[in-house]
């Protein structure tokens, strides 16, 4: 039986890597990811996890070591946060190209400046186009489950891509809440040992990652794009099988009270739960509002999204990052482009909020919905706006 325990979400993330029986962890501590790697180093030192824990000198090295380990056929895990993710940026792009199925947790944190250790999504949005599968967790249970599922998807011979599991820094990473932990033996039914297709082995040498001359580069990028888009069906299948075994259902897009909703809030990550409370309150007042959230961010679930918006008049898209100079946030931009040419096109209004650790409160979500209703009636509104910004 799975254990229901009160545990810090960061420690649950480490327990997930442990239950997945990882072989190699290469990581460098950085706030707010620190507790994840601290706990993993404890688990390895205490002999509870038989893995190589590589203390490296930087995140650039962490990701390099992860790629090497995965290329040698090891199940590989790492975790980082904003400045660490930025420092590994160059190597992050190499992992999908080498088809190394690394799983990385990003405890999302604002990317400077001004320097901030607090939560938003600017770190991961800077890696948006890196070619990894990317998911966003709403709560601690989902962090645990998404990590287990990530290994299964990453190592599928049809995928062989790295996966990033995003969890909000502090707002998730430092919260104690009830989580059902699966043990390694419970997980083993779902996650079989990694069976690599090709490995770096001195006895049978191969080359991985040679230069991509113009004659092959386009084809290599085409393959990277095809396999990432194609991974969606493997992801959906892996999530369905997880539900069968453990009873928790996972979909690329989750909806909440969207039945008959005219206006729908769109979120990613842990603010979704606060948004649910806002939806409940507004429904009590007779306002027909619902909520949608992206769990799968890359590959972007465009068909599911177009189906999900049927009958909805207006979307209020909440971004946790600014796409500077692009007049909006990255999620809203993607939503708009995904709807272009679609048979049903709700009006879309973009809101940016919760930057650098500022709370998005229930009242702020209510404010966004009210604005959206007003703009939708008029048929126009601002291209985007910041909610909760002090102007004086």
């Amino acid at each position, binding site marked *: 039986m799975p254990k229901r325990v*009160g545990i810090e979400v960061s420690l649950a993330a480490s327990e997930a890597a442990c239950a997945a029986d990882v072989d190699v962890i290469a990581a460098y501590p950085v706030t707010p990811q620190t507790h994840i790697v601290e706990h993993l180093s404890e688990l390895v030192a205490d002999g509870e996890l038989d893995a190589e824990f590589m203390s490296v000198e930087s995140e650039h090295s962490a990701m390099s070591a992860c790629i090497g380990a995965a290329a040698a056929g090891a199940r590989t895990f790492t975790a980082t946060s904003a400045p660490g993710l930025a420092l590994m940026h160059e190597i992050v792009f190499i992992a999908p190209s080498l088809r190394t199925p690394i799983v990385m947790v990003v405890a999302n944190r604002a990317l400077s400046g001004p320097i901030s250790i607090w939560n938003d999504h600017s770190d991961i949005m800077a890696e948006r186009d890196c070619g990894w599968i990317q998911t966003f967790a709403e709560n601690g249970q989902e962090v645990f489950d998404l990590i287990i599922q990530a290994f299964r998807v990453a190592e599928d011979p049809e995928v062989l891509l790295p996966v990033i599991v995003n969890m909000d820094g502090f707002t998730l990473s*430092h919260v*104690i809440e009830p989580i059902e932990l699966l043990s390694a033996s419970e997980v083993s039914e779902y996650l079989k040992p990694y069976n690599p297709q090709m490995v770096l082995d001195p006895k049978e040498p191969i080359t991985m990652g040679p230069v991509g001359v113009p004659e092959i580069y386009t084809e290599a990028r085409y393959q990277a794009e095809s396999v990432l888009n194609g991974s969606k069906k493997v992801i959906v299948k892996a999530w369905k099988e997880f539900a069968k075994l453990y009873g928790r259902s996972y979909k690329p897009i989750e909806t909440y009270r969207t039945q008959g909703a005219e206006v729908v809030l769109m979120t990613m990550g842990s603010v979704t*739960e*606060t948004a649910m409370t806002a939806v409940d309150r507004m429904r009590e007042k007779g306002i027909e509002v619902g909520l949608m959230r992206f769990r799968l961010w890359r590959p972007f679930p465009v068909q599911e999204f177009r189906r999900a918006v049927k009958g909805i008049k207006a979307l209020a898209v909440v971004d946790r990052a600014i796409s500077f100079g692009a007049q909006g946030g990255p999620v809203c931009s993607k939503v708009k482009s995904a709807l272009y040419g679609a048979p049903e096109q709700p009006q879309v209004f973009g809101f940016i909020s919760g930057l650098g650790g500022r*709370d998005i409160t229930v009242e702020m979500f209510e404010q966004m919905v009210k604005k959206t209703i007003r703009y939708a009636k008029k048929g126009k509104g601002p291209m985007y706006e910041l909610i909760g910004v002090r102007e004086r």
Partner: protein
Amino acid sequence: MIEIRVHGRGGQGAVTSTELMAVAAINEGKYAQAFPSFGPERRGAPVMAFVRIADVPIRTREKVYRPDIVVVLDPTILKIVDVTAGLKKNGMVILNTSENEEQVRKAFGIKAKMAPVDATDIAMKHLGRPITNTTMLGALIKATGIVDIKSMETPLKDRFGRIAEKNISAMQQAYKQTQ
């Protein structure tokens, strides 16, 4: 849902006390969240930590702005922080103080219900240190009944190992002394 805000100074275990409360509630089959006021930890600086406890899943990630209960680990905080900020109408302040209730009310203009306890004195007797986080748990549980006092024992043992017994006896003493 009960929302609790704990005030203390960095190093006094405010965050730990909220963790212990949440784990005890979760072990009782309830839902709970515990989290610090996020930021760089600084020993001695005023800090806050938060707990939510409910019988149904908790669906909010806001900080606690309107607590039902405020716990004050260190009486010197009263001079620099308005601990009753946002406190609900029928809210309660669980306060570590060696002074009597009327003196405190007068000095700091506290009108809310109060449960004073001399936690520093109890902690010094049982732990030999003026660290009041576990002692104040006894006062909190007596005044509010948010969890069974017995439910605190396992989390305290898991957390404190060989000094758990001292912490448990300090908690129990505060439980006895609090009205």
